[in-house]
């Protein structure tokens, strides 16, 4: 344990992991309650295409990933208006298009398979000092927005029509929210990989919803479960030499299952 903390790459991994552990479930809670749990999935594939573009053009991949995610979240809003009755279509279309684009771009950028794997499955232990800086700044910005717009986001998530009757600028709030989601996805991807991003946004929230007794409580518990998953997951991965991204998310799933089992047992008694 102590030895793990003295390694520079593990320190970076922990800092990046903890930031993501706070940001991803907080944004994820609003996403789940807006019934958009799969939205993060679509955006993570877009981010992957962005990362591939960055690798092809020799730009910093995290930056191109961020840019792609933000652009796609705004595009998805536009698509959703074309498919009003089937809003999940917008998510499916973007997911398909982005994954296809990512596959093409990644095959063009061939030669750096290791790097591709890093973005697909996450490689928190190769997080660079620059990555940590970017993740800290963007993560802090997302949390600040969340803090400042907490009441607006809660009101629009609970009852969008009522919020509109009250005169809230729903369009602007939703737009900003989707940008926050995009930023969160891009950050989280560096840690757990494209395939597991949405799990870190959704699974801790799923556990929190089982036990929360208020919205505030749900938010705090989501974050707590996120932090627990990252800390326990990274430690396990280090000790047993497992893939960190997978171990983190698997820990989150284990927490969720334990809570479900506990609730079931208490009901039987």
């Amino acid at each position, binding site marked *: 344990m102590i030895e793990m903390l003295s390694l520079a790459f593990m320190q970076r991994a922990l800092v990046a992991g903890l930031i993501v552990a706070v940001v991803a479930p907080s944004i994820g809670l609003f996403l789940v*309650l807006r019934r958009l749990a799969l939205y993060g999935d679509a955006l993570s594939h877009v981010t992957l295409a962005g990362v591939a573009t960055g690798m092809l053009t020799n730009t910093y991949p995290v930056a191109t990933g961020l840019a792609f995610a933000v652009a796609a979240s705004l595009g998805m809003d536009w698509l959703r208006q074309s498919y009003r009755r089937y809003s999940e279509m917008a998510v499916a279309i973007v997911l398909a298009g982005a994954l296809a684009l990512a596959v093409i771009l990644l095959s063009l950028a061939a030669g750096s398979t290791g790097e591709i794997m890093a973005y697909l499955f996450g490689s928190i232990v190769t997080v660079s000092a620059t990555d940590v800086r970017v993740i800290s700044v963007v993560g802090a910005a997302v949390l600040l927005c969340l803090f*400042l*717009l907490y*009441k*607006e986001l*809660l*009101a629009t998530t*609970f*009852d969008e*029509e*009522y*919020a*509109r*009757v*009250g*005169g*809230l*600028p729903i369009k602007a709030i939703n737009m900003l929210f989707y940008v926050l989601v995009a930023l969160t996805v891009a950050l989280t991807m560096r840690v757990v990989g494209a395939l597991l991003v949405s799990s870190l946004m959704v699974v801790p929230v799923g556990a*929190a*919803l089982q036990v*929360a*007794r*208020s*919205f*505030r*409580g*749900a938010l705090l518990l989501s974050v707590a479960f996120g932090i627990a998953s990252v800390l326990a997951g990274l430690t396990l991965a280090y000790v047993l030499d497992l893939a960190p991204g997978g171990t983190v998310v698997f820990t989150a799933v284990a927490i969720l299952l334990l809570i479900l089992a506990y609730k079931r047992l208490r009901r039987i008694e």
Partner: protein
Amino acid sequence: MVTTNPVIDVRDVSFGYGKDLVLDRINLRVARGEYLGLIGPNGSGKTTLLRLILGLLPVTQGEIRLFGTPVQRFRDRWRVGYVAQKAASFNTAFPATVEEVVRTGLTARRGLLKRFTSSDRLAVRQALDRVGLLPYKDRLVGRLSGGQQQRVFIARALVSRPELLILDEPTVGVDASAEGQFYRLIRSLRKEMGLTVILVSHDIGAITQEVSSLACLNRRLFYHGSPADFGTDEQLCEFYGHEVVRIVHHHHPEEGEGA
């Protein structure tokens, strides 16, 4: 303060989805302190008229004024409290306490980027006390009974201290005792807060005994006047819904009830 403007002034409003007119040249004035029952069969345009009044649909023909201001320029939205019909069918798994839900009613009034204050907390408590739910403030809203949930949404509408309260089909899906309790609640709110109330219903039953005036809508406005006159004119009840236009448009006197 007494203003001469009617609370709601609907002038020559028509509205259609595509070619079919849902509302045809509606004129309706709601006076301060009025307790209006807006009735009409399903599909008669009641909800469309409400959505126009609330600014959820754009007024394309005619004009709607709220407190004297055209609805598209009306900014003081807190002056209007609204309880939607579908409020009863919200996501009951949403992890929010009664207090948290009622507080969302103050979001717009408090303003962007501002935190709720201690006077907001007090307003939430008062609204909950008014509907008799103060002891339930920390409960999850999804765990309450249908009638209690309805009162949570009434409290949310009241928390900004509105002057006008609009309720869309409030007694649908609640049992008889909750319905009686609901009407008693509205009566006491009118007395204590001097509220103007619009109650929308497809059912002429109980509401005719409660309201101070009735408006009967079915694409056109067929009647706006006292419920007593409406009751005696049985023919009108029969024509209700047919092409026979009988506008008995005597304006409801401002009898200062509660105002």
